Protein backbone atom coordinates (compact mmCIF):
# COMPACT_ATOMS: atom_id res chain seq x y z
CA UNK A 1 0.00 0.00 0.00
CA UNK A 2 1.53 3.40 -0.95
CA UNK A 3 2.26 5.75 1.90
CA UNK A 4 0.59 9.09 2.16
CA UNK A 5 3.64 11.03 0.99
CA UNK A 6 4.04 9.05 -2.27
CA UNK A 7 0.36 9.34 -3.13
CA UNK A 8 0.40 13.05 -2.61
CA UNK A 9 3.48 13.47 -4.74
CA UNK A 10 1.98 11.43 -7.56
CA UNK A 11 -1.19 13.49 -7.51
CA UNK A 12 0.84 16.63 -7.57
CA UNK A 13 2.78 15.39 -10.61
CA UNK A 14 -0.47 14.53 -12.39
CA UNK A 15 -1.92 17.94 -11.76
CA UNK A 16 1.29 19.80 -12.59
CA UNK A 17 1.14 22.11 -15.60
CA UNK A 18 2.65 20.35 -18.64
CA UNK A 19 2.75 23.27 -21.05
CA UNK A 20 0.08 21.79 -23.33
CA UNK A 21 -2.46 24.36 -24.37
CA UNK A 22 -6.06 23.81 -25.39
CA UNK A 23 -5.22 24.68 -29.02
CA UNK A 24 -2.34 22.16 -29.04
CA UNK A 25 -4.67 19.46 -27.76
CA UNK A 26 -7.34 20.41 -30.28
CA UNK A 27 -4.85 20.25 -33.16
CA UNK A 28 -3.60 16.80 -32.12
CA UNK A 29 -7.12 15.47 -31.59
CA UNK A 30 -8.03 16.51 -35.15
CA UNK A 31 -5.18 14.37 -36.51
CA UNK A 32 -5.27 11.30 -34.24
CA UNK A 33 -8.72 9.97 -35.32
CA UNK A 34 -7.69 10.47 -38.96
CA UNK A 35 -4.58 8.38 -38.37
CA UNK A 36 -6.60 5.66 -36.68
CA UNK A 37 -9.02 5.68 -39.62
CA UNK A 38 -6.19 5.47 -42.16
CA UNK A 39 -4.56 2.60 -40.24
CA UNK A 40 -7.81 0.63 -39.86
CA UNK A 41 -8.92 1.40 -43.42
CA UNK A 42 -5.53 0.44 -44.84
CA UNK A 43 -5.54 -2.84 -42.91
CA UNK A 44 -9.03 -3.77 -44.10
CA UNK A 45 -8.13 -2.74 -47.66
CA UNK A 46 -5.07 -5.01 -47.59
CA UNK A 47 -7.11 -7.98 -46.32
CA UNK A 48 -9.82 -7.44 -48.96
CA UNK A 49 -7.16 -7.02 -51.66
CA UNK A 50 -5.54 -10.30 -50.58
CA UNK A 51 -8.90 -12.09 -50.69
CA UNK A 52 -9.64 -10.59 -54.12
CA UNK A 53 -6.29 -11.64 -55.58
CA UNK A 54 -6.67 -15.23 -54.29
CA UNK A 55 -10.33 -15.41 -55.38
CA UNK A 56 -9.71 -14.07 -58.91
CA UNK A 57 -6.29 -15.51 -59.68
CA UNK A 58 -6.21 -18.77 -57.68
CA UNK A 59 -9.75 -19.94 -56.84
CA UNK A 60 -11.64 -19.15 -60.06
CA UNK A 61 -8.95 -20.47 -62.49
CA UNK A 62 -9.13 -23.83 -60.69
CA UNK A 63 -12.40 -24.44 -62.47
CA UNK A 64 -16.04 -24.91 -61.77
CA UNK A 65 -17.31 -27.12 -59.00
CA UNK A 66 -20.70 -27.85 -57.61
Amino acid sequence: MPDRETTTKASADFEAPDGITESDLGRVMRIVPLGAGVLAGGTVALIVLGWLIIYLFVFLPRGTVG
Partner: protein
Amino acid sequence: MTQTHPELSERRILATELLWSVGVAVLVIAIIAMVLVTALTMGVNPPSNVERIDPKTLHLSGEFAEQNLGTMVGSDGSVTARVIATQFMFVPRCIQVPEGRKVTLRMTSPDVIHGILVTGTNVNTMVIPGYVAQVHTVFMRTGDLLMPCHEYCGLGHSEMYAVVQVVPQNEFKPDSNGRPVCAKR
Protein backbone atom coordinates in the same frame (compact mmCIF):
# COMPACT_ATOMS: atom_id res chain seq x y z
CA MET B 1 -9.78 20.91 -18.13
CA THR B 2 -13.50 21.39 -18.28
CA GLN B 3 -13.95 22.50 -21.90
CA THR B 4 -15.16 19.76 -24.28
CA HIS B 5 -13.60 19.76 -27.72
CA PRO B 6 -16.06 19.56 -30.59
CA GLU B 7 -13.92 16.75 -32.09
CA LEU B 8 -14.66 14.66 -29.07
CA SER B 9 -18.37 15.15 -29.12
CA GLU B 10 -20.64 12.14 -29.36
CA ARG B 11 -21.99 13.44 -32.63
CA ARG B 12 -18.56 13.34 -34.18
CA ILE B 13 -17.87 9.84 -32.85
CA LEU B 14 -21.23 8.62 -34.13
CA ALA B 15 -20.54 10.06 -37.57
CA THR B 16 -17.17 8.29 -37.71
CA GLU B 17 -18.71 4.99 -36.65
CA LEU B 18 -21.48 5.36 -39.19
CA LEU B 19 -18.97 6.10 -41.94
CA TRP B 20 -16.96 3.02 -40.96
CA SER B 21 -20.09 0.86 -40.81
CA VAL B 22 -21.20 2.00 -44.26
CA GLY B 23 -17.75 1.31 -45.68
CA VAL B 24 -17.62 -2.19 -44.21
CA ALA B 25 -21.21 -2.89 -45.31
CA VAL B 26 -20.33 -1.87 -48.88
CA LEU B 27 -17.32 -4.20 -48.84
CA VAL B 28 -19.31 -7.14 -47.45
CA ILE B 29 -22.13 -6.60 -49.97
CA ALA B 30 -19.60 -6.35 -52.83
CA ILE B 31 -17.91 -9.61 -51.77
CA ILE B 32 -21.23 -11.45 -51.40
CA ALA B 33 -22.37 -10.10 -54.78
CA MET B 34 -19.14 -11.30 -56.40
CA VAL B 35 -19.54 -14.77 -54.88
CA LEU B 36 -23.19 -14.93 -56.00
CA VAL B 37 -22.42 -13.75 -59.55
CA THR B 38 -19.64 -16.31 -59.98
CA ALA B 39 -21.87 -19.00 -58.46
CA LEU B 40 -24.67 -18.25 -60.91
CA THR B 41 -22.62 -17.54 -64.05
CA MET B 42 -19.66 -19.90 -63.62
CA GLY B 43 -21.30 -22.67 -61.59
CA VAL B 44 -18.96 -22.38 -58.61
CA ASN B 45 -20.94 -23.81 -55.70
CA PRO B 46 -20.24 -25.99 -52.71
CA PRO B 47 -21.18 -29.59 -53.52
CA SER B 48 -24.55 -30.13 -51.86
CA ASN B 49 -25.86 -33.46 -53.04
CA VAL B 50 -27.90 -35.35 -50.44
CA GLU B 51 -28.45 -38.94 -51.50
CA ARG B 52 -28.69 -41.99 -49.24
CA ILE B 53 -27.17 -45.40 -49.95
CA ASP B 54 -26.89 -48.52 -47.82
CA PRO B 55 -23.17 -48.90 -46.97
CA LYS B 56 -23.61 -52.60 -46.11
CA THR B 57 -24.79 -53.65 -49.58
CA LEU B 58 -23.30 -51.08 -51.95
CA HIS B 59 -20.69 -53.58 -53.24
CA LEU B 60 -23.30 -56.23 -54.07
CA SER B 61 -25.42 -54.45 -56.65
CA GLY B 62 -26.31 -51.03 -57.96
CA GLU B 63 -24.10 -48.30 -59.27
CA PHE B 64 -21.21 -48.95 -56.86
CA ALA B 65 -20.87 -52.66 -57.68
CA GLU B 66 -17.34 -53.47 -58.87
CA GLN B 67 -18.19 -53.59 -62.57
CA ASN B 68 -19.60 -50.06 -62.45
CA LEU B 69 -16.63 -48.40 -60.76
CA GLY B 70 -14.34 -46.04 -62.64
CA THR B 71 -15.15 -43.64 -65.44
CA MET B 72 -18.13 -44.28 -67.66
CA VAL B 73 -19.35 -42.31 -70.66
CA GLY B 74 -23.12 -42.39 -70.95
CA SER B 75 -25.08 -42.66 -74.16
CA ASP B 76 -25.73 -38.91 -73.94
CA GLY B 77 -21.98 -38.23 -73.77
CA SER B 78 -21.95 -37.42 -70.05
CA VAL B 79 -18.84 -38.49 -68.16
CA THR B 80 -19.35 -40.00 -64.70
CA ALA B 81 -16.65 -41.44 -62.48
CA ARG B 82 -17.69 -43.68 -59.60
CA VAL B 83 -15.23 -44.35 -56.81
CA ILE B 84 -15.45 -46.18 -53.49
CA ALA B 85 -13.34 -44.74 -50.68
CA THR B 86 -12.50 -47.45 -48.19
CA GLN B 87 -9.84 -48.07 -45.56
CA PHE B 88 -7.21 -47.48 -46.93
CA MET B 89 -7.61 -47.15 -50.66
CA PHE B 90 -9.73 -45.76 -53.43
CA VAL B 91 -11.34 -48.22 -55.84
CA PRO B 92 -10.26 -47.78 -58.57
CA ARG B 93 -6.93 -46.12 -57.81
CA CYS B 94 -6.87 -44.25 -61.11
CA ILE B 95 -9.67 -42.64 -63.06
CA GLN B 96 -9.26 -41.12 -66.49
CA VAL B 97 -11.31 -38.05 -67.40
CA PRO B 98 -11.30 -35.67 -70.37
CA GLU B 99 -10.04 -32.09 -70.20
CA GLY B 100 -12.52 -29.25 -70.73
CA ARG B 101 -15.64 -31.40 -70.43
CA LYS B 102 -18.16 -31.65 -67.65
CA VAL B 103 -17.36 -34.57 -65.34
CA THR B 104 -19.45 -35.91 -62.48
CA LEU B 105 -17.62 -37.58 -59.61
CA ARG B 106 -19.74 -39.88 -57.44
CA MET B 107 -18.24 -41.42 -54.36
CA THR B 108 -19.31 -43.29 -51.28
CA SER B 109 -17.77 -45.18 -48.39
CA PRO B 110 -18.63 -48.57 -46.87
CA ASP B 111 -16.73 -48.02 -43.61
CA VAL B 112 -15.71 -44.68 -42.10
CA ILE B 113 -15.71 -41.02 -43.06
CA HIS B 114 -13.20 -40.14 -45.76
CA GLY B 115 -12.63 -36.95 -47.74
CA ILE B 116 -11.13 -36.15 -51.10
CA LEU B 117 -9.58 -33.26 -52.90
CA VAL B 118 -8.06 -33.14 -56.36
CA THR B 119 -4.88 -31.11 -56.34
CA GLY B 120 -4.93 -27.94 -58.40
CA THR B 121 -8.73 -27.93 -58.68
CA ASN B 122 -11.65 -26.87 -56.52
CA VAL B 123 -12.86 -30.46 -56.12
CA ASN B 124 -13.11 -31.06 -52.39
CA THR B 125 -15.75 -33.06 -50.56
CA MET B 126 -16.36 -35.38 -47.65
CA VAL B 127 -17.22 -39.01 -48.34
CA ILE B 128 -19.57 -40.20 -45.63
CA PRO B 129 -20.85 -43.79 -45.25
CA GLY B 130 -24.55 -43.94 -46.02
CA TYR B 131 -24.41 -41.01 -48.46
CA VAL B 132 -23.29 -40.44 -52.04
CA ALA B 133 -20.90 -37.54 -52.43
CA GLN B 134 -21.30 -35.94 -55.85
CA VAL B 135 -19.21 -33.22 -57.44
CA HIS B 136 -19.61 -31.71 -60.90
CA THR B 137 -16.51 -30.14 -62.34
CA VAL B 138 -14.58 -29.35 -65.51
CA PHE B 139 -10.88 -30.14 -65.44
CA MET B 140 -9.01 -27.27 -67.06
CA ARG B 141 -5.54 -28.76 -67.41
CA THR B 142 -4.17 -32.14 -68.35
CA GLY B 143 -1.92 -34.29 -66.22
CA ASP B 144 -1.95 -36.79 -63.39
CA LEU B 145 -3.61 -35.04 -60.47
CA LEU B 146 -3.17 -36.49 -57.02
CA MET B 147 -6.39 -37.23 -55.13
CA PRO B 148 -5.52 -37.95 -51.49
CA CYS B 149 -7.87 -38.75 -48.65
CA HIS B 150 -7.94 -35.59 -46.55
CA GLU B 151 -9.99 -36.86 -43.61
CA TYR B 152 -8.07 -38.96 -41.10
CA CYS B 153 -9.56 -42.45 -41.47
CA GLY B 154 -7.17 -44.70 -39.59
CA LEU B 155 -3.56 -45.87 -39.43
CA GLY B 156 -3.25 -46.25 -43.20
CA HIS B 157 -4.71 -42.82 -43.96
CA SER B 158 -1.44 -41.40 -45.29
CA GLU B 159 -1.22 -44.21 -47.86
CA MET B 160 -4.72 -43.59 -49.18
CA TYR B 161 -4.65 -41.74 -52.46
CA ALA B 162 -5.74 -42.08 -56.06
CA VAL B 163 -4.85 -40.39 -59.33
CA VAL B 164 -7.15 -38.44 -61.61
CA GLN B 165 -5.66 -38.71 -65.07
CA VAL B 166 -6.85 -35.74 -67.12
CA VAL B 167 -6.21 -36.26 -70.83
CA PRO B 168 -6.90 -34.05 -73.87
CA GLN B 169 -10.24 -34.63 -75.57
CA ASN B 170 -8.59 -36.34 -78.58
CA GLU B 171 -6.81 -38.82 -76.29
CA PHE B 172 -9.93 -39.66 -74.29
CA LYS B 173 -11.00 -42.88 -75.97
CA PRO B 174 -13.49 -45.00 -74.05
CA ASP B 175 -14.03 -48.56 -75.28
CA SER B 176 -17.26 -49.87 -76.74
CA ASN B 177 -18.75 -50.03 -73.23
CA GLY B 178 -17.95 -46.37 -72.64
CA ARG B 179 -15.09 -47.25 -70.23
CA PRO B 180 -11.77 -45.43 -70.63
CA VAL B 181 -8.69 -46.95 -69.00
CA CYS B 182 -5.87 -45.05 -67.34
CA ALA B 183 -2.84 -44.87 -69.58
CA LYS B 184 0.39 -46.32 -68.19
CA ARG B 185 2.89 -43.53 -67.45
